[in-house]
């Protein structure tokens, strides 16, 4: 260590908030200050008491709900008597709805596996790290790719008669088109918001819409033989 020093050192001390900090800045870099200082609160009691309070509120709500509404209980299990329709728990009804259109190996195995894989890779996928609007760079190229993707997805859904999944797809596609035609300087707040959204946002939003619509359709709009029924007309 006989070389001359190649760094700048600094010391900062604020004993009431944090221990002494020492900083070494090597010469060729410039220190970029991201966070200077933020107000902090003690976990105990501030955060823990809030958590306890919110859990107690939740408990009150659930207790009242349980006093008012009884959990469903049907007749004893009978393998010789199949109810029509036989429905899975509500959170799987989106998948059961897909089962109506696609072969079981697709709706029951392929789709859930791909969904889980997609969720796992979200934070590792480079596209997601980029937190800027989808159309702020390479607008024309990306718009072309989007049109091809959206149209093929819609054709695919139509081909398999998955009309319930078409509606959310169209809604999200319209939002994306609006986003492509908006800038961050747009006078409308909503358009500024849309323009700033990255690809991951659009995929997740599409997934969320599909999840809600498919689950709702499976839960409320499906009757005997998985036929279309209206819940208010029984």
């Amino acid at each position: 260590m006989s070389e001359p020093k190649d760094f700048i050192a600094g010391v900062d001390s604020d004993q009431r908030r944090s221990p002494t900090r020492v900083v070494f800045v090597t010469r060729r870099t410039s220190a970029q200050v991201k966070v200077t200082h933020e107000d902090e609160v003690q976990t105990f009691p501030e955060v823990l008491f809030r958590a306890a309070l919110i859990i107690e509120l939740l408990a009150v709500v659930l207790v009242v709900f349980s006093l008012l509404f009884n959990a469903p209980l049907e007749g004893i299990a009978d393998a010789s008597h199949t109810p029509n329709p036989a429905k899975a728990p509500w959170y799987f009804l989106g998948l059961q709805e897909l089962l109506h259109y696609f072969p079981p190996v697709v709706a029951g195995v392929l789709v859930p596996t791909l969904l889980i894989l997609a969720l796992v890779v979200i934070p590792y996928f480079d596209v997601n790290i980029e937190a800027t609007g989808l159309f702020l760079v390479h607008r024309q190229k990306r718009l072309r790719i989007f049109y091809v993707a959206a149209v093929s997805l819609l054709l695919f859904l139509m081909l398999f008669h998955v009309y319930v999944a078409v509606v959310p797809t169209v809604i999200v596609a319209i939002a994306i088109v609006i986003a492509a035609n908006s800038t961050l300087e747009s006078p409308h707040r909503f358009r500024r918001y849309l323009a700033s959204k990255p690809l991951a946002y659009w995929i997740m939003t599409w997934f969320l819409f599909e999840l809600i619509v498919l689950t709702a359709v499976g839960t409320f709009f499906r009757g005997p033989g998985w036929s279309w029924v209206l819940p208010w007309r029984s």
Partner: protein
Amino acid sequence: MPVQEYGIVERLRGSRVWRSVFRSGTGTSTLHRSLAVQQNIFLHLFATKVRKRMIRFNVTWFLGTLTLGTFFILVITGVLLMLYYHPSVPQAYADMKDLQFVVSSGLFLRNLHRWSAQAMVFLVFAHMFKVFYRGAYRTPREFNWVIGVVLLIITLLLSYTGYLLPWDQLAFWAITVGSNLSSTVPLIGNKIHFLLLGGNQVNANALLRFYVLHCVVLPLAAIIFIAVHFWRIRKDGGLYVQQSEPKMKAVDDAALATTEVK
């Protein structure tokens, strides 16, 4: 410290027995409050300090906390329900009827367990989407997101295995529909189906398997992953703060400027 000046709670907290349990001791200093978190085996999963703007309601909607709350309720009501439940056919269904008509507050207990379970599934999804839309899954929090996905799967499996236990028509056919999907897995589908149910269709063996999974295996897995999930929040630098939000930043800069002027 003159403990006499404080109320009975403070005197209790200053007592030798209390001090032997909670080593952090009494006092309201930052040090004592930090120690209260650091020196508690459960609380030490959390950081001793949290950024002030993270505890505002609209940042997280407390969805993670609420999910934990439903888990607590489910463990408590679940253990109580186990006292009245036999995982056998047809006794399981008779136990449901007993809970309804014989056991004191049995119906309420089952209602609370069932509705809390539905709430937990909903809250887990809500928490996931909230975290995504906040951008809180990004580096360095990727792995905690993955643990979250694991917890989502565990929650769904917990709810799904619990669905069979009442042994009514709803339970039987929901599990039949669901488990039939496993037999469509290429090549090993039938083997998975048999392993899951302990037979070729939903029967007493399936009930016992689902009971063991629901009451032992999955809750333990959930507890382990919840612990890691919480610990990683601290290790990954606390709850995610949106740096890029211009409005928020402007406010902070203004606040900082005033502090510096003072």
